[in-house]
C-alpha cells in the first residue's frame, strides 16, 4: 500500500476506500465538480430509486478532505427525522459550520461530534472567528422572526459567507431521503436549488431523478450552469464485487451461486445489497445456497430492514391506514398483471379520496417510480422485485387476512422456485446480448451479403476451415450495407403478447435508417428473432415466425420492415426457400458470429481512425484560396507514400474541388473546412468535412437523371471530377453538414516495384 493510502483518513465514509466498489467513474466525476474549472456550477445527481448515493458522497467528501486544498467539503444528508423545512435548514447550518471547522482545524473527529453553535464558535480558528460569530448572531436574530422562508434561505446560503481568502466551499447535499415532503410552507427542494444555483459556489445535489429534475424546473434553474450525472443500478460484474466486499466486511459466508443470485434478485441495487447483507450479519446467517438466500430474503420482507424501508415509504405516500390498504390492493393487482393502465378517475373511485389527495399520492408514487403518472393515466406494476413481493405479502396479510404462516411458507416456496428462473433469464440475457449488441452497432457498414443468406453460406462454406471462411468472405463481391440503428427494444416492449412466444431478448425490433438518411423512404424496421432449435429450423417454424412478424408489423403500422431470423444450426432447404420468397433474411449462429466480428472490426477501426499515428488533421477557413493549403499538404503526404506525380495532381485537384463544394454549398455556420488525411500502407484516405446544411443533390444518393442534370450545370462539375480522379468517393452522413471521404490507392507501375 502506498504511503498516500496509509495517510488517508476516513472522515465520513462508512467503508474504507478500498471497499468502495462499483462507482469509480461517478466518484471521479463528483470530485471533478470541486475543481476550479467547475466553480459556481451545480451537479445534479439523478438517482434511480434504491441505486444508493449516500456512501458515494461520503467517499467524495473524504477524498476532498484528505487533499487539503482550498476546497472545503461539506456533506449534508436530509433525513426523515427532520419534520419541517426550517428544522432541516437549521440542521444544515449546524453541519456546515461543524464540517468547516473540522476541515480548518484538520480534525476529522469534529465533523461528527455532538456540538452546539456555541461550541462551534468556541472552536472556530482565529482567522474565521469574526465571520462565524456574525453568522451565528444573524441566525439567532432570524430564528425568532417568524419568517420561515427567510430563515431557510439564510441557513442554506451560509456557505456563501466564507471569505474568499479562506477557501471555496463544495457542498454535497444528499436528498435521497425525500426532503421535498417536509411539512411547512417552504418547499425545501426548490429552495435549495434557488439558493445554491445563485450562490456562486459549486455543489452537488443528489436525489431521486424524477424529484430532483422537477425541483430544478420549479426553481427556474439555469440549466446551462447545471451538470447532470445519472446514477443507475450496478451492472452484474460490479454488483458481484460489491456483494463480495460487503459480505467480507460483514463476515457473512457466501458462495458464488448465492452471490450471483443476490445480484440478480436485487437487480444490482447497492441499497438492497447492503441492507440485505447487513441483515445477514445481524442474524448470523450464511448465504451459501439458494435456500439460505431466500430464507433471509423472506425474513427481510416480513420484518427486516427491507420491510421497514417499504413500510416507511408506503406510510409516507399514503399516511391513512384505510387508504393504504386500498392502495396496496390496487398496486398488487397491477403488479400481478391485472389492469396495469387505468385512468385517474378509476384510481380516485377505488381509493375513495379527493382529486387533490390522489394527485399528491400519485406524485409520490411517481417519484419513487412505482407508477408512471402523466396527469391522466396511471401505469402501475413497475418497481423492483422486492417491492412486488412486499406488496403481495401485504395484500395477503392485510387485505385478504390470510394466516401469516401460510403467507411466509408460500413466499419462501415461490422465491425458491423463482430463483433458478431468475438465473436462467440472466444467463440467456448474456447469451443473447450478442444479438442485441450487434444490431445496436449497425451503422451503415458494408458486410458480405452471404452472411444474411444461410442457403448460400451453407453451399459455399459448410464444413470449411475458419481461415478459409474468413478469406472467402474477404473475397466476396456481393455486399450488404447495414442500416443505422437508432432505436432497439424487445418485441414485448411493443406487444406484450410476445412474451408468451419467446424470451424477451430473443425477439427484437430495431428502428433503422438506410444510409443513415433520415427520411420516410429510408426508414426500415428490422424484426429479428433468435429461434431456439437444436436442428436446422424447418419450414413450418420459419413460416410461423414470418407470419408472426408480418402481423406484428401490420399491428404497429410498420410500412417498411425487414425480417431476420437467426437459428443455431441454420435453416432447412425448404425453410431457406420460404425465407427468400418472403424477402426475409436467415442466418445461422456461425454467420451471426462472423457478422459480429466484422461489425466490431469496423467499430474498432473507426476508433483507431481518430487517434491513429498516421493521421493528419487540419482545419482551414473557407475562402481566400485556402483549398490550396489543403492541396499542398496532401501533396507532401502523398509524396511520402511515393504516389507518382500524376496521381498527386489528381489528389490535389480532388481536394480543391471538395473544398470548393464545402465552401459553396454548406451554408456553414463556422466557415471552416475540416480535413483529415489518413495514411495506410496502400492508400491515402482524405476526409473533407464541413458543418451546415447540404443541398440534397450533394449527398451522393442522387439518381442518374439528377446526375446528368447537375453535370449540365457547369458548377456541378466538382463532384464529377472528384469521382473521376479518386478511386473511392463516399459521402459519410453526419448530423450537421457533410463529410466526403476520398481514397486513392497506390498502384505499382509496370517495371517498378511501387508507385514510382
Amino acid at each position, binding site marked *: 500500500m502506498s504511503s498516500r493510502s496509509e495517510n488517508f483518513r476516513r472522515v465520513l465514509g462508512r467503508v474504507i476506500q478500498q471497499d468502495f466498489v462499483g462507482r469509480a467513474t461517478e466518484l471521479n466525476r463528483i470530485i471533478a465538480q470541486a475543481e476550479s474549472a467547475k466553480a459556481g456550477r451545480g451537479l445534479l445527481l439523478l438517482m434511480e430509486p434504491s441505486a444508493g448515493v449516500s456512501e458515494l458522497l461520503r467517499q467524495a467528501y473524504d477524498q476532498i478532505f484528505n487533499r487539503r486544498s482550498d476546497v472545503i467539503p461539506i456533506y449534508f444528508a436530509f433525513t426523515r427525522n427532520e419534520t419541517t423545512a426550517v428544522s432541516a435548514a437549521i440542521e444544515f447550518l449546524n453541519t456546515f459550520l461543524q464540517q468547516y471547522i473540522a476541515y480548518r482545524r484538520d480534525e476529522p473527529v469534529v465533523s461528527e461530534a455532538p456540538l452546539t453553535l456555541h461550541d462551534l464558535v468556541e472552536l472556530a480558528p482565529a482567522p474565521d472567528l469574526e465571520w462565524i460569530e456574525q453568522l451565528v448572531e444573524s441566525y439567532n436574530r432570524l430564528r425568532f422572526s417568524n419568517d420561515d422562508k427567510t430563515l431557510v434561505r439564510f441557513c442554506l446560503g451560509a456557505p456563501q459567507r466564507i471569505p474568499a481568502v479562506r477557501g471555496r466551499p463544495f457542498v454535497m447535499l444528499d436528498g435521497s431521503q425525500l426532503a421535498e415532503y417536509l411539512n411547512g410552507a417552504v418547499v425545501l427542494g426548490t429552495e435549495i436549488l434557488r439558493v445554491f444555483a445563485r450562490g456562486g459556489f459549486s455543489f452537488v445535489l443528489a436525489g431521486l431523478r424524477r424529484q430532483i429534475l422537477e425541483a430544478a424546473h420549479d426553481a427556474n434553474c439555469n440549466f446551462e450552469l447545471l451538470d447532470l450525472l445519472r446514477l443507475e443500478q450496478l451492472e452484474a460484474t460490479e454488483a458481484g464485487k460489491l456483494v463480495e466486499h460487503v459480505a467480507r466486511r460483514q463476515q457473512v459466508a457466501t458462495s458464488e451461486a448465492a452471490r450471483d443470485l443476490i445480484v440478480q434478485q436485487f437487480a444490482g441495487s447497492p441499497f438492497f445489497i447492503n441492507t440485505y447483507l447487513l441483515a445477514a450479519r445481524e442474524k448470523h446467517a450464511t448465504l451459501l445456497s439458494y435456500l439460505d438466500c431466500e430464507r433471509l430474503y423472506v425474513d427481510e420482507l416480513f420484518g427486516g430492514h427491507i420491510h421497514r424501508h417499504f413500510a416507511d415509504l408506503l406510510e409516507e405516500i399514503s399516511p391513512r391506514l384505510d387508504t393504504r390498504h386500498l392502495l396496496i390492493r390496487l398496486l398488487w393487482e397491477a403488479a400481478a398483471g391485472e389492469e396495469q393502465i387505468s385512468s385517474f378517475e378509476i384510481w380516485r373511485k377505488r381509493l375513495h379520496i379527493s382529486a387533490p389527495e390522489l394527485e399528491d399520492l400519485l406524485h409520490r408514487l411517481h417519484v419513487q417510480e412505482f407508477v408512471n403518472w402523466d396527469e391522466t393515466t396511471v401505469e402501475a406494476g413497475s418497481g423492483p422485485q422486492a417491492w412486488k413481493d412486499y406488496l403481495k405479502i401485504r395484500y395477503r396479510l392485510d387485505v385478504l387476512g390470510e394466516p401469516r404462516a401460510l403467507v411466509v411458507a408460500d413466499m419462501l416456496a415461490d422465491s425458491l422456485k423463482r430463483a433458478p428462473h431468475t438465473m436462467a433469464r440472466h444467463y440467456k440475457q448474456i447469451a443473447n446480448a450478442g444479438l442485441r449488441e450487434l444490431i445496436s452497432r449497425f451503422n451503415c457498414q458494408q458486410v458480405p451479403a452471404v452472411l444474411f443468406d444461410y442457403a448460400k453460406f451453407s453451399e459455399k462454406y459448410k464444413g470449411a476451415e475458419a481461415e478459409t471462411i474468413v478469406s472467402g468472405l474477404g473475397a466476396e463481391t456481393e455486399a450488404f450495407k447495414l442500416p443505422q440503428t437508432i432505436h432497439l427494444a424487445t418485441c414485448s416492449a411493443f406487444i406484450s403478447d410476445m412474451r408468451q412466444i419467446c424470451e424477451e431478448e430473443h425477439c427484437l425490433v430495431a428502428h433503422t435508417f438506410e444510409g443513415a438518411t433520415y427520411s420516410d423512404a429510408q426508414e426500415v424496421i428490422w424484426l429479428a428473432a433468435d429461434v431456439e432449435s437444436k436442428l436446422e429450423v424447418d419450414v413450418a417454424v420459419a413460416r410461423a415466425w414470418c407470419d408472426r412478424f408480418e402481423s406484428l408489423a401490420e399491428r404497429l403500422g410498420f410500412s417498411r420492415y425487414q425480417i431476420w431470423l437467426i437459428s443455431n444450426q441454420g435453416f432447412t432447404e425448404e425453410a431457406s426457400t420460404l425465407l427468400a420468397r418472403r424477402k426475409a433474411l436467415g442466418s445461422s449462429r456461425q454467420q451471426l458470429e462472423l457478422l459480429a466480428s466484422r461489425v466490431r472490426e469496423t467499430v474498432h477501426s473507426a476508433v483507431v481512425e481518430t487517434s491513429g499515428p498516421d493521421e493528419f488533421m487540419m482545419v482551414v477557413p473557407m475562402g481566400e484560396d485556402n483549398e*490550396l493549403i489543403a492541396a499542398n499538404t496532401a501533396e507532401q503526404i502523398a509524396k511520402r507514400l511515393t504516389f507518382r506525380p*500524376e496521381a498527386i495532381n489528381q489528389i490535389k485537384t480532388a481536394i480543391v*474541388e471538395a473544398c470548393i463544394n464545402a465552401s459553396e454549398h454548406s451554408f456553414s455556420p463556422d466557415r471552416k473546412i475540416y480535413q483529415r488525411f489518413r495514411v495506410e500502407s496502400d492508400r491515402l484516405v482524405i476526409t473533407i468535412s464541413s458543418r451546415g446544411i447540404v443541398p440534397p443533390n450533394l449527398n451522393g444518393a442522387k439518381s442518374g437523371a439528377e446526375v446528368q442534370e447537375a453535370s449540365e450545370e*457547369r458548377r456541378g*462539375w466538382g463532384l464529377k471530377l472528384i469521382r473521376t480522379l479518386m478511386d473511392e468517393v463516399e459521402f459519410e452522413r453526419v448530423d450537421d453538414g457533410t463529410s466526403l471521404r476520398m481514397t486513392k490507392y497506390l498502384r505499382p507501375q509496370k517495371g517498378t516495384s511501387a508507385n514510382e
Partner: protein
Amino acid sequence: MDTPSGGLVRSHCVGTTAVVYASDYLNKLTGEKIEHECRRQLKCGCRALIIDFSDTKLVNSIGISILLGIIDVAEKSGARIVFSEVNNQTVQLFEMLGLTRHVVLAKDEREALINLSRFEATTPVVH
C-alpha cells in the same frame, strides 16, 4: 510588349491575335481576370485569342467553367481561340469536362500562332 491589364493578367498582341497568360492557379478569381482581358482584347478588334497555360499548375472546375464562357464569347465574336502549353494533368481535366471539343490545343505559343495563321489563310474573307 506585355500589357498589364485591370488585374495581374499578362497579355500581348501579335497582329490581330491576343496572347493572354493564365496564372499558376486557375480559379474563379484568376479565371474572371482572364475573361475580362479576353473580352477587352476582342473589343479592341482582336480576331483570335491564345490563352497560354505555361505557368498553370492547378485548375479547378470553376476556372474551367469560366474558360468555357470565354470560348462562347469568342465564338459569338467570330474569333478563333487556342489554348497553348497546357500540362498533361490539365489536358486530362479539360477532356473529362468536354472542353477539348470546343478548343484547339497547341504545344506552345509559336505552334498556336502557326495554327491560327493557317486557319486565316484557308478562311475566305466575307465583305
